[in-house]
């Protein structure tokens, strides 16, 4: 059991030990970091590929359909993502004549870069983290804001009215939702007394691994809900997929993108979806903590549960309007978040005064 729990850690130790026999220390470090980051990116992309497949299957089932089930020789259409990827790569790469070419081409790269960089601080399991920096949360918030710039670049650089509308909507929305998101993160930080992702998870360790902050009623629960709602907006998922809004502004900021550039946006969106689910898991659902099963299994179970909820929402809900969305952020989530932070602080003070914590 213990071997299974630390499977990936042991693998890493064995690999590092192997290299250390005939390489200097600094090179071992560089190589192991490179290997970890390549593994992270590849794993993320592979997960994303089959996440699109999973979404199609789940939404299909919600709509009484089978979903993709034809591509390739594997059952259940398991090769559909490969077919999609090949299609992305072989499609013609079109740059509009009037587009601002540098900005237009840079935007998808920036988007994917920003979202992949987030993976560095996600704790996938006990000790399984790219970089356990002390201010992991801060890094995360800072990096996720980068995508707003990517969206604006895409919207502006394509020189299309629809994409401009989409880009503007995206920026307005992302900036507004950073605030309630930050406020709910603050609650988790206050409860765990740390900015490091690993330590936040460790703080949720008691009660057979079920001492999750989401169960800290009311503050933790509320913070979890506000976080999840803001996260949906942050990654443009339904019902907040306003910047794309295919029925209004026809995919918004990426209307002019074709082929692999569109593919990069697509990947970035799903990587973002995985990241926010992972962060929600880390902050409020106890990360990799849980009874019996190995930590990384717990982590992925929770992440996929959240992803399922996202897909379920997408299969059910219509889209809000941009002004209603901003209203929700500023009139509901921000006040609730602020009150929640104050309540948490008050609670901690009272607990401390009573000597319970």
């Amino acid at each position, binding site marked *: 059991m213990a071997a299974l729990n630390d499977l990936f850690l042991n693998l890493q130790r064995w690999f590092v030990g192997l290299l250390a026999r005939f390489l200097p220390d600094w090179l071992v470090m560089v190589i192991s970091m490179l290997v970890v980051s390549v593994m992270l990116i590849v794993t993320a992309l592979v997960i994303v590929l089959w996440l699109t497949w999973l979404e199609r299957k789940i939404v299909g089932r919600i709509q*009484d359909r089978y979903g993709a089930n034809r591509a390739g020789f594997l059952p259940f259409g398991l090769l559909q993502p490969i077919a999609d990827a090949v299609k992305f790569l072989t499609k013609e790469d079109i740059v509009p004549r009037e587009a601002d070419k540098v900005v237009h081409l840079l935007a998808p790269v920036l988007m994917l870069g920003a979202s992949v960089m987030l993976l560095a601080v996600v704790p996938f399991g006990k000790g399984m983290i790219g970089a356990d920096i002390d201010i992991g949360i801060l890094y995360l918030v800072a990096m996720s804001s980068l995508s707003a710039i990517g969206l604006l670049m895409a919207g502006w650089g394509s020189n299309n009215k629809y994409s401009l509308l989409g880009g503007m909507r995206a920026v307005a929305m992302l900036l507004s939702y950073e605030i309630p998101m930050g406020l709910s993160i603050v609650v988790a930080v206050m409860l765990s007394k740390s900015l490091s992702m690993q330590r936040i998870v460790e703080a949720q360790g008691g009660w057979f691994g079920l001492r999750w902050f989401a169960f800290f009623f009311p503050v933790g629960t509320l913070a979890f809900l506000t976080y999840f709602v803001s996260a949906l907006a942050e990654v443009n998922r339904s019902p907040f997929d306003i910047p794309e809004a295919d029925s209004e502004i026809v995919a918004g900021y990426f209307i002019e993108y074709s082929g692999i550039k569109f593919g990069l946006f697509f990947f970035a969106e799903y990587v973002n979806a995985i990241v926010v689910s992972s962060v929600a898991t880390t902050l409020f659902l106890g990360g990799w903590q849980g009874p019996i099963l190995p930590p990384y299994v717990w982590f992925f179970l929770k992440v996929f549960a959240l992803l399922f909820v996202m897909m379920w929402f997408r299969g*059910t809900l219509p889209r809000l309007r941009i002004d209603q969305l901003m209203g929700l952020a500023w009139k509901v989530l921000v006040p609730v978040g602020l009150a929640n932070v104050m309540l948490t602080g008050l609670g901690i003070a009272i607990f401390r005064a009573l000597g319970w914590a």
Partner: protein
Amino acid sequence: MLGLGIAKGLAVTLNHFRKTYFGSGPSKGRGLFTVQYPEERLAPLARFRGSLAHLADPETGGPRCTACRICERTCPVGCISGIEGEGRGRERRATQYLYNIGECLFCGLCVEACPFEAIAMSHEYELATYSHDALVYDLRKLAEIGKKYALEGKEEA
């Protein structure tokens, strides 16, 4: 109450999701609705109007059609043409009959107009071809479709 209506909607969709795996009951309304086309096929209903077909004369085995051209005149779009016949009076039978399925409306007015019940709308519905020329059916092909149709025994509901 904020969220209650949304929760109701979510319950509906989750229920559909569940039913596609664990649904039961005889009604078509439950569970998955998609027909996996090439493997599964829905049988056309008895009155379904597919391609035109020429029915065979039970005595001679040849076409029943007497080349009277009423169908040609009735057709709103003019997809029936080139009708030729041989013989006189009651013995007259069609020798050629061109039917352009690319233009056909599948309205069935020709069949209604036919005084000899020599043509019918068959149940052929997989009618795609690779060329425009192949869309024009001649008498031989129409009689073939008619034979298949008669074998299925679905001439009249």
